[in-house]
């Protein structure tokens, strides 16, 4: 699974970090960091993260 985030849309709300904490986190500067190739076991959480992103900035492929 490959995850990508449109950082031009991302507003760093961190809803993804709540939905899939193993894949997305907000760092100390308040900016998003994420694992672009998370384990397949995270698929359900990553799909949830993509669904809840207030600006729909998350894409899942593969």
């Amino acid at each position, binding site marked *: 699974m490959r995850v990508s985030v449109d950082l031009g849309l991302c*507003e760093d709300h961190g809803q993804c970090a*709540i*939905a899939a*904490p193993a894949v997305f986190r907000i760092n100390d500067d308040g900016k998003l960091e994420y694992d672009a190739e998370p384990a397949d076991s995270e698929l359900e959480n990553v799909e*949830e993260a993509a669904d809840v992103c*207030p*600006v729909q900035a998350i894409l899942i492929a593969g």
Partner: protein
Amino acid sequence: MTVTASSAVPHLDVTDPTFSITSDEVKAAREQNWYATTPYGIAVLRYDELSRLMKHPKLRQGSVAWPAHHGVTTGPLAQWWQSWILNKEGEEHHRLRRLMNPAFSPKLIGGLVPRFQALGNELIDGFHRSDSCEFISEFADPYAARVIAIMLGIPEEEWPIISREAATIGLALSVTIRSELPRIEAALGHLYDYADDLIADRRAHPKDDFVTTLVNASRSEDGKLSDTELRDGIVLLIFGGYDTTRNQLGLAMQTFMNHPDQWELLAQRPELGRAAVEEVMRVNPTVRWVTREVLEPFTYQDLDFVPGTTVHMFSESAGTDPRVFGEPSFDITAERKPHYGFGGGAHHCLGHFVARSDMSEALPLLARRLRSPQPMPGATWLPDSGNTGPTRLPISFTPGT
């Protein structure tokens, strides 16, 4: 509270009953500095700083102590307030959010768009042949309440129950919380009964809808929502989604009456409905401001943030910040940075996909069918603080096709 800043810091008395967040006083304060002191805590006035602080991990949502500040510490309202997702933080909050997210999914809401359109047209049909209406009681109020009814899968004719009970609970957010406590708690009780019936029904007869999704919500590490949490989720939809949407539609009409060229544009180009919602919420949000409370000390810009300090986020002030948005303007075709009318961070409005969808359908419909709306005498307004909007908005218009 420690303030260590070198340039002049304005002071704003947010406790004055005549305080208005959209006043020239606030705009002048914004030009003096990025924040102002207030009788309790500080107010953030400019866009970049609000953007950062709104989502800052060392700030918690600020309203948890609101009832206690007014002497309400026991009883059903105090209990509901404590258990409400908005007033939770950390893992307790995140678990509730994860379990409630699917019921508010944009995927679930997309299928309801035709019903929102039908609802909007039905309501307009009711007054279309006159040349005037009271926009709140004849459109905004029933529209907002019936959208909730649609979401809950209850008969739309039951919308006055939602309207009455949710409006009463809204008193909990105003300074009348203590004096109106018995009424507020009675309304809460009615909504709980309503929610319990809905939950029991969907357990017995699952449907492809909001309540069933909530009832079935389950994640391996989070378990499921308890009966109390389910009730709170339903009351949250009702309380969080009705008042705000009704107000925001009223404010949208106010803004567009001041910008008739934009209303005409929206009538010609209904695909601008979504952009219209965003632009209205930028300059005229119903939630005028949200609060945070400092949890851990940190320094930002020239200011030391001390735990316990209240931080008022003035969303409308940030939304009209000339540093980002230039001179005051209202343009539904402009590319804009995002507004903060739905809050931000962990507590970003859970229902925003619903709100955006139903308002994006309503506004172009109204623009096409109510041409050249003009204010008539007799408008009444909530105070311009907290959640605001018109309670009565008589308008005249030319019926469109």
